[in-house]
């Protein structure tokens, strides 16, 4: 017996409320449960309740494993992109640009401009990411993990390391160049992942 749209939505909502927050894993689990329920006769509510009694723990265990794996994949992807020549080229371009600007402005002004620009860029990035998830807060695993890792890393650097306070001006230029290149690289990573998810799941 084929399940109705409402019944599929019910399964999805149940999984979401059980803590399965990523769409990519939820789609797969919803299909698995729906296919299993379609294979048995009888009342949907009763069959669903019975299925969950027997399988919920396994589904949650699978979800936990999926979360860990997504975290590892996110780290691997970030590192792979940072190891690519593009990151080095971007860092050099930014450094040359900043070095050129030091011939016109003082290092303090440049540091302030860099700090302000980076702050604005990060705020725009966070706003864009939150906005792109929509009102239903749709999250895909690896993209969300990349966001989390980057947010925590930048937060730690800005709040605890505070390079502006103790690095001399030359090294500070290198720091800002690398930081800007890192930020651009993260944008590339996001674009790469967004395209992958769009290709797999549609818009």
């Amino acid at each position, binding site marked *: 017996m084929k399940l109705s*749209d409402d019944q599929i939505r019910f399964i999805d909502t149940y999984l979401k409320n059980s803590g399965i927050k990523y769409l990519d894993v939820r*789609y797969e689990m919803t299909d698995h449960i729906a296919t299993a329920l379609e294979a048995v006769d009888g009342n949907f509510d009763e069959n669903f309740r019975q299925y969950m009694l027997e399988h919920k723990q396994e589904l949650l265990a*699978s979800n936990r*494993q*999926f979360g860990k794996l997504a975290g*590892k994949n996110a780290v691997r992807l970030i590192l792979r992109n940072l190891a690519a020549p593009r990151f080095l080229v971007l860092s050099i371009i930014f450094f040359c640009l900043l070095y050129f600007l030091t011939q016109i402005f003082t290092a303090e002004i440049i540091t302030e401009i860099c700090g302000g620009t980076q702050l604005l860029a990060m705020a725009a990035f966070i706003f864009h990411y939150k906005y792109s998830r929509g009102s239903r807060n749709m999250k895909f695993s690896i993209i969300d993990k990349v966001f989390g890792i980057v947010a925590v890393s930048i937060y730690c650097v800005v709040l605890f390391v505070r390079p502006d306070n103790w690095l001399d001006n030359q090294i500070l230029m290198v720091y800002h160049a690398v930081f800007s290149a890192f930020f651009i690289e993260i944008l590339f990573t996001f674009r790469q992942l967004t395209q992958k998810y769009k290709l797999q799941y549609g818009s």
Partner: protein
Amino acid sequence: MFLYYFIMKNSPLYKGSLITIIMKLLEENGRMYGYEITQKVKLITTGELNITEGALYPALHKLEADGHLEVEVEKVDNRLRKYYRLTESGRKETISRLAELEEFIKNMQNLVGSTNLKLGY
């Protein structure tokens, strides 16, 4: 860890074989989705082996992350379905894993056979 959820008869003997089973099935069937794999295993083994969700999906996701599987998502009826298919590296890995398994079975048969002879069975 996930092998804990791999409920089957005499499970310690099957330790480590889950991935080989999945890859072999995908090699034979082209592309498959999760539920289909569990049912196929049940059918082939006439219900002796039962791969649970808690074992199957982490294994599939790991194989995908390692580049051994590629994914196709299709709308089937009123929901999305994720199909898995072996990549080129997955095909090579399957061949190597099957050869390893065959070697293991052969050695075990030799060992068990020679023990039986010594014990006079």
